[in-house]
């Protein structure tokens, strides 16, 4: 049933975009591994994990867009789900180090030996298995989102209140993960990974594969999001965003609607974090910082919330800009980021993609209006027919 849903009528643009991402999943690794370093099309070694990082950020932004753009829930705590997914992956990678750590303890990670711990805490069990860690990548952020959302949505905490308590949530987690007693490496976090699924994490081939995995995941998430958004459920979500009480009075359980998308979105964010960690090589409590979560919001806003392609473009563009800025004029990055926040909200509230769509729509409408002048009566008579239905659907998708 789910595959059937995934293959359902997608918007053409989204489909093309997903294909483009899949193409990148193939082309970037190939170019990196096969082309000689001098070739103008060669992707240099350091670029591969960097691009992978951008794409995992894009996945995070897409996840946020599902709740913010489509359901009106501005989460300022999505960085927490991302970081939890990252920690789950990091725990797997830590266990893979085995006796190759500085203290050569076959079971305990170095930081635990350093803290004089004698045995592995219970919540580290199972993380030596990849399948278990992968499950936890989905489960832990999903569970947190479910519990948090269950409380928040049932008692109808909305708007800025919700934003503030999501921020408090990630802040509390930030403080918690800084503590050594938590057993997640304190403020150093988890790092010094050696291999993943038996492959050396530093090797070119592994890095290229990780990039490909990220791109494929992103494409899949894009299709999944598109399927969700285009379903009747997606329309209900937009209804909740625009007129929550109307949705309620139509008999929809708004809290359940929100809870489902919030949980799905948190799981997506967790996957993004899990893909991020092996490519960046570290996960530490800094990822829980409220500032990080707000930055995700701006990627989404710049690209265009309420569109599926927007957040992906926004995340890649802003982070690409960040890489350039922090290398060339590190002093000015915060000015630029701050200005981006202000300028986007003031001048580009729909984001890049949203604004482009608006232009395109205005152009189409002018054309249609001209056509309508001639055939208004005909169209009115015909409108109950087949083509009217189809166009209703394509329009709703945007």
């Amino acid at each position: 049933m789910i595959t059937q849903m995934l293959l359902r009528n997608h918007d053409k643009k989204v489909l093309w975009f997903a294909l483009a991402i899949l193409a990148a999943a193939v082309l970037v690794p190939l170019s990196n591994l096969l082309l000689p370093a001098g070739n103008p099309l060669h992707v240099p070694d350091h670029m591969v994990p960097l691009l992978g990082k951008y794409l995992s950020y894009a996945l995070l932004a897409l996840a946020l867009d599902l709740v913010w753009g489509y359901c009106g829930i501005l989460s300022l705590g999505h960085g927490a789900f991302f970081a939890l997914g990252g920690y789950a992956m990091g725990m797997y990678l830590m266990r893979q180090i085995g006796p190759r750590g500085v203290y050569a303890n076959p079971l305990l990670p170095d930081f635990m030996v350093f803290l004089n711990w004698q045995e592995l805490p219970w919540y580290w069990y199972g993380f030596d298995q990849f399948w278990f860690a992968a499950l936890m990548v989905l489960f832990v952020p999903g569970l947190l989102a479910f519990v948090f959302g269950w409380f928040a949505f049932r008692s109808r905490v909305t708007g800025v209140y919700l934003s503030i308590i999501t921020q408090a949530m990630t802040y509390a987690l930030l403080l918690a993960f800084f503590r050594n007693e938590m057993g997640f490496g304190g403020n150093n976090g988890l790092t010094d990974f050696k291999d993943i699924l038996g492959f050396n994490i530093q090797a070119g081939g592994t890095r290229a594969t990780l990039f490909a995995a990220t791109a494929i995941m992103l494409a899949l998430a894009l299709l999944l999001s598109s399927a969700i958004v285009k379903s009747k459920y997606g329309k209900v979500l937009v209804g909740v965003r625009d007129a929550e009480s109307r949705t309620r009075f139509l008999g929809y359980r708004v809290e359940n609607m929100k809870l489902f998308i919030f949980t799905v979105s948190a799981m997506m964010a967790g996957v993004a974090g899990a893909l991020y960690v092996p490519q960046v090589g570290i996960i530490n409590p800094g990822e829980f910082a409220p500032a990080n979560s707000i930055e995700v919001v701006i990627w989404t806003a710049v690209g265009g919330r309420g569109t599926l392609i927007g957040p992906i473009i926004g995340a890649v563009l802003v982070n690409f800009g960040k890489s350039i800025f922090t290398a060339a004029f590190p002093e000015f990055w915060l000015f630029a980021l701050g200005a981006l926040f202000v300028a986007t909200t003031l001048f580009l509230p729909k984001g890049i993609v949203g604004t482009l769509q608006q232009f395109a729509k205005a152009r189409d409408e002018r054309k249609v209006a001209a056509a309508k002048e001639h055939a208004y009566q005909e169209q009115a008579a015909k409108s109950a027919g087949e083509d009217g239905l189809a166009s209703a659907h394509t329009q709703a998708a945007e």
Partner: protein
Amino acid sequence: MYRTIQIFLVALCLIISAFATGARAQEDIRPLVDALGQGGFPQKIEAVGALAASGDPKVAEILGLLSDGKLFAPKTGGAVFLETDSGYADVLTGAPVTDVPGNLQKIRLNNGLRGAISAAMSQLTLLSPDRGARFAAAQDLLKEANPENLDLLNSALAKEQDAEIKATMEAARAVILLKTDASFEDKEAAIATIAARGNRDAVNILNAAFSSAPADLQPAIQAHIDGINQKLAIWDVVQNIWYGLSLGSVLLLAAIGLAITFGVMGVINMAHGEMVMLGAYTTYVVQQTINSAAPELANFSLAFAVPAAFLVTGLIGIGIERGIIRWLYGRPLETLLATWGLSLILQQTIRTIFGPTNRQVDNPSWMSGAFDFGGMSITWNRMWIIVFSIAVFFALLLLLKRSKFGLQMRAVTQNRRMASSMGIRTPWVDAFTFGLGSGIAGMAGVALSQIDNVSPNLGQNYIIDSFMVVVFGGVGNLWGTLVGAMTLGIANKFLEPYAGAVLGKILILVLIILFIQRRPRGLFALKGRAVE
């Protein structure tokens, strides 16, 4: 009667000897000083005693030099010289001496000599005319409680006029008495004297004395220990409440401006923390300016900093409202993002101008130090910040309830369109309301500069807490903010001893998140149709 006479006689002797020593000329102690360089250790110990007995004001300094190993004498005995960076000098006058004997060597010390020096020093400082020195010496004695000092202490006690020092000395005497074989009554009195101090030190002293005390004295000691512990437990609670109020007042200052912009205008100002930070930097600039232009006013620089900070941040606030926020009314989430961006810009601006490191803002003399209140010590700066925050709170309340501006502000809050058609310039009310909120944040910055590091990140540390206060207390009601701030402050301080500072904070956050589920609009929420 006999005791009185004895004390009188001792006092008389001391007075006479004090007069005598005062009358003696400086040169009179030169032989005594030179004696330090002669003979073996027993002779030297005697010489130290003689020096101390002379009562000359220079003696303490000389003994200090001796114990530091700065004094030299010929191997064969003779005049003592002071070693300086460039050669030698006269010990008494400090004048350089060039023709020194060839066989100079450092005057060596052994433990006996060191003990003699230290005893002589405490004797000298106990009788020193400087109050601070005497107090320090008395406290040292209380800590060491060496029975050898008993006589010295007795004589000092007889002379002492200052009540605080006298109490310390009496306690020291009591502790010493417990170590000697004084009579049962004396020891009982001594225990009472110690117990009267009523602090943790007293408990420690009594605990230490407990085992060595005679059996018939032990119940009394135990009773005193229990009594003090009980009192201390009560004071602990009082102290926690005080710390909580102190933290609460800081939260109140930081949150009250936010309560205005959020509660009255519905605007989430993420740059609020940066307004606090700017207020702190204004304090720094004002202080620097006054220190260089009019140092005699340095103690009152805060009096200039408060209005300056209010004006600076208030004007910046009005600028922000006119420039950014007014375009975003009705879109609270966008306002949140834009003001967050603004906070990044403000932080980086300050970092560029003042550098990323902490700036030193001095406490004026009337805000430094502490005083004792019952079983706890209260620092003046915390005290003044509580007073300040309460003053700001009530001034604001008065402004909102009694002034024309406050009336207009409340009118706009309740019904913007109606207010506007009544001739109220709602855009200006908005601008000034935002300016007021920001200005109060600036004043909070002045207060925070006194207890926290003034750095570009100052505001970041308070923004989430302030939001919690506003959300917890409820929007649109200043009393809610007051109660919210104080409750969170006190709850934090009560959780800290059990859970630790970090875990306590996490607990508070979790509790607030849960609380919001129960009461989504805070403690003091508006009800009815007006809410929608």
